[in-house]
């Protein structure tokens, strides 16, 4: 079982505010006007929580400019939180801090610090809340902001079990503002947005930075357990176009059933070694080559899992082949729906974000290629750096975008008030 914060660490407390009043206060200008810098520290620690269908994403802002005076005032529990979170990379058996994604020396609300990204499975949420209760989090003074469906699902549990009130934020709002924000701060000095050149060619395939200086309109495809597709026309003007239930959860779920794998990483690793053409029926399997009457190339998949109608072929495929075919099926389908939405909305830049793309170069390159090929070069698939940093495993954008935004939403009004 996952235990987010080790119970051994007796001194660890999270700061939770006496919430309701503070939340009201945050929206009240008059109160904000009265706010002064010294008050801000009482909001520490800065947390954001995105509770998705499969994963919980937690961001934590670690202030690096703490004055001696502040340090003296800081309660012991806060100090231990900071130490615990920043000195560990794993929490319990399933909680993980993605060190490579850490955003260093970020200035937020006049405070300098590092932004940390932590994730754990949604099914460990009850343990997380239980721990909050055991550790008496509610006695601390902070805002616990949350988004994602779980913010609603677990709201009551937070309240009754942990005596904690969540500040719920709209998921899509967070997503849009988050991606724009993250693009503006860059990735530790590098460009946040990029695309693939020659995605189909493993030799020549190149990841190149993309300057999102004219972001609008853009189609934002968020691939989590399911998929949400948003058309964004400006910072405040966006709409949810559609969604599909064939998303990351489908890939992982089917892989578990078909291959017996237990983790997303394992599923992807299998997929990287498999051959989907043994599983799928291609156009050339039916027509012997291209289907010229309709301009369909022979390599295109005619029927996903189509070869599996035959007993002999079912017996001839490996688990790796099945994992690969599942990945290709889901990815192609997302690409296809995204392309149709882009056409219907008359948008030609499509940004793919979300958990599913974490350490998932195959999917990203396939999306890039499929979008380019079927749109005859009219559409461009863009990705966000946090999904792929170097060769190391990367974190999906929604991982941090939403909590990141959470932080910003809390702090932005304060910044205004502080400038008085």
């Amino acid at each position, binding site marked *: 079982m996952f235990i987010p914060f080790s119970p051994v660490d007796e001194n660890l407390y999270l700061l939770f505010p006496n919430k309701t009043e503070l939340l009201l206060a945050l929206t009240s200008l008059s109160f904000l006007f009265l706010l002064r810098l010294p008050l801000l520290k009482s909001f520490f620690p800065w947390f954001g929580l995105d509770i998705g269908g499969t994963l919980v994403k937690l961001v934590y802002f670690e202030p690096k400019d703490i004055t001696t005076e502040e340090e003296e005032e800081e309660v012991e529990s806060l100090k231990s939180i900071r130490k615990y979170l920043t000195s560990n990379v794993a929490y319990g058996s399933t909680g993980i801090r993605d060190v490579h994604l850490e955003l260093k020396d970020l200035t937020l609300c006049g405070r300098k610090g590092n932004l940390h990204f932590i994730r754990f499975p949604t099914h460990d949420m009850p343990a997380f809340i239980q721990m909050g209760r055991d550790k008496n989090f509610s006695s601390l003074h902070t805002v616990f902001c949350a988004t994602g469906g779980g913010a609603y699902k677990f709201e009551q549990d937070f309240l009754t079990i942990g005596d904690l009130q969540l500040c719920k934020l709209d998921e899509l709002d967070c997503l849009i503002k988050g991606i724009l924000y993250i693009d503006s701060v860059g990735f530790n000095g590098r460009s946040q947005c990029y695309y693939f050149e020659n995605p189909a060619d493993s030799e020549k395939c190149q990841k190149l930075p993309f300057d999102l200086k004219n972001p609008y309109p853009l189609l934002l495809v968020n691939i989590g357990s399911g998929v949400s597709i948003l058309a964004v026309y400006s910072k405040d003007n966006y709409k949810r176009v559609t969604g599909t239930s064939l998303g990351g959860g489908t890939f992982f779920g089917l892989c578990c059933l078909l291959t017996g794998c237990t983790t997303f990483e394992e599923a992807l690793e299998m997929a990287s070694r498999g051959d989907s053409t043994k599983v799928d029926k291609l156009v050339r399997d039916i027509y012997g080559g291209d289907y010229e009457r309709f301009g369909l190339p022979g390599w295109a998949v005619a029927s996903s899992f189509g070869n599996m109608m035959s007993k002999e072929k079912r017996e001839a495929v490996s688990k790796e082949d099945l994992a690969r075919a599942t990945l290709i099926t889901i990815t192609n389908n997302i690409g296809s729906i995204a392309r*149709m939405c882009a056409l219907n909305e008359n948008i030609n830049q499509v940004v793919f974000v979300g958990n599913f793309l974490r350490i998932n170069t195959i999917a990203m390159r396939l999306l890039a290629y499929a979008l380019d090929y079927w749109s005859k070069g009219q559409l461009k698939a863009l990705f966000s750096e946090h999904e792929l940093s170097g060769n190391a495993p990367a974190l999906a954008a929604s991982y941090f975008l939403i909590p990141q935004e959470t932080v910003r939403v809390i702090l932005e009004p304060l910044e205004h008030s502080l400038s008085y």
Partner: protein
Amino acid sequence: MAECGASGSGSSGDSLDKSITLPPDEIFRNLENAKRFAIDIGGSLTKLAYYSTVQHKVAKVRSFDHSGKDTEQDHEPPYEISVQEEVTARLHFVKFENTYIEACLDFIKDHLVNTETKVIQATGGGAYKFKDLIEEKLQLKVDKEDVMTCLIKGCNFVLKNIPHEAFVYQKDADPEFRFQTNHPNIFPYLLVNIGSGVSIVKVETEDRFEWIGGSSIGGGTFWGLGALLTKTKKFDELLHLASKGQHTNVDMLVQDIYGGAHQTLGLSGNLIASSFGKSATADKEFSKEDMAKSLLHMISNDIGQLACLYARLHCLDRVYFGGFFIRGHPVTMRTITYSINFFSKGEVQALFLRHEGYLGAIGAFLKGAEQDNPNQYSWGENYAGSSGLMSSSPELCPTQRARSGTFDLLEMDRLERPLVSLPLLLDPPSYVPDTVDLTDDALARKYWLTCFEEALDGVVKRAVASQPGSVDAAERAEKFRQKYWNKLQTLRHQPFAYGTLTVRSLLDTREHCLNEFNFPDPYSKVKQKDNGVALKCFQRVVHSLDALGWEERQLALVKGLLAGNVFDWGAKAVSEVLESDPQFGFEEAKKKLQERPWLVDSYSRWLQRLKGPPHKCALIFADNSGVDVILGVFPFVRELLSRGTEVILACNSGPALNDVTHSEALLVAERVAAMDAVVRSALREERLLLVQTGSSSPCLDLSRLDKGLAVLVRERGADLVVIEGMGRAVHTNYHAALRCESLKLAVLKNSWLAERLGGRLFSVIFKYEVPAE
């Protein structure tokens, strides 16, 4: 993607069934005259198409050669009837499982005697696989045709020629099928073919279509992935599993993510957030049923979503679905319909086709028959020779399944002349001929099915009596009885088998069955006699009408029309009277009529209208022979002619009950003209024109009328339509809206129907309508 079939099936039993005995009377009929073959071999089903000729006995009428004879001899009938052989063209389609292919090819070879055919058009994924077998068995060269081209040609063909071809599927409704009346312009539309993969084709004209997209997630994905997940090998079994499963055990729903809060957020908690989202765990077992159901939802939703996206991009709202994934399976039709409704918010309609399985074979046939110009003609579904739509879920209709066995048939008759819509229809796309939908109205369905069952004895008797010289008449009549009885039983269980069930379709089916057993016109002698009797009364009736004052005469003319309409051998209440009382005549009929005010009575407005300027041209649809047409319609026509109105008198092309046919009407008109100067000069000056309707039905479908009639209506500028009789003005067209004035009149000769309309037996409908300005 085109149906490429399942290589997983079929291979097992290819050689198993060679010994099957085929009943040649029922399957592969008319093979001896067959020419032009086409075959569509899919993953599990083979569809064979051929063109053949059918010899039918038809009753022809012609005037006697009167030279040297006294025409006024009392005992002589007004014209002579001769039974002749007529050859008509028919398209045969047979669908059977691939396992029978060899047996079927052998059978065809043995029965194919005098054909000049050298080539067989082949399409479908199996065309490759069976090419050699076909060439070897039939000694015909296999010409491969493009799958999608065939599909679309076939689709256009059925949409144009078969009324009620397309239907929407309604979940939890009884019946689940709601048929669409054919749009006069079928283009443009979207065809989504769900075979192994999905092809989305936009069809713009007869010859122009474009593959606009597709998806690899289709029937093959359901089958292949389903087989992996459930270890169930057969497609039908997978569907069966799916119909019993609970997808919520496997799928992650919105409520699984949001908890109970989805309600306050206005979200539907049952929406699937992530297909198979709950199966991402190693320590839980999932049932086959639940996984199959989840897979079905995943695939159907995905296809529906893509179809909507394409429909929107191309501004289309009609989407036809086909392919083996659909093929009459209620489970898939239900999920696809749900998905289309959900994603299009009701703006796009998911339509399915009754003969979906035949599209490829029909298309391949049409490709091969291009020099015969099959598209020049209109075709009609032959209810006698076609199996009709049935549910492919065995548990839904076990009886049907057992009886129909493995073979499914479709036969289409080539009609003599092309059919078009009446130009005077107010809004052709929304025109529905039939007044009561018996598929919908269970009470009425029960009544009419029983009514037709009870009338069957009489029809059989009449049929035998109509051919006194024939040795096998009784035997054929018995076969007819069996056939029609079986049709009625099928319709009791599956009212949707031939499209919307209506009184018209029941009547038409009976006519088709009678024809099938060479009873082309059981009433020919009755009609001949009735016409003879009525002709003798014509002058007397006209004299007495002429003696009346204008206003009195108008009412008498209308009463004459109505009294004439009592003479309907199709109505049980009347036929009993006519059988028992040979003296029952025009005056007796008048006495039967309801007194004014009639059940529907707009006579005063009609009279008022007659005081105004004459109509330019009246189109009159006549009903029965004898008293009806001669003493009712002709005097009425004569009055219109005298007013300066031209008249187009439209009668059936072929026989139906005792309805007057076009050829009989021509003879009758000739005899009337001989007695009456008004009619005589009008015929000579072409102010009175006799045309055929293109129909052989006791009812009237104004969207399928002879092209010549439509042309004439346009040329003459018809501004009045008169529809007479229960079949044409009550069972059909009662609610038909026209662009010009119309008169619908009938006598209700069925007490059940009369009661339904709030009247009694012999209540009168006189409906004069003027279109809104």
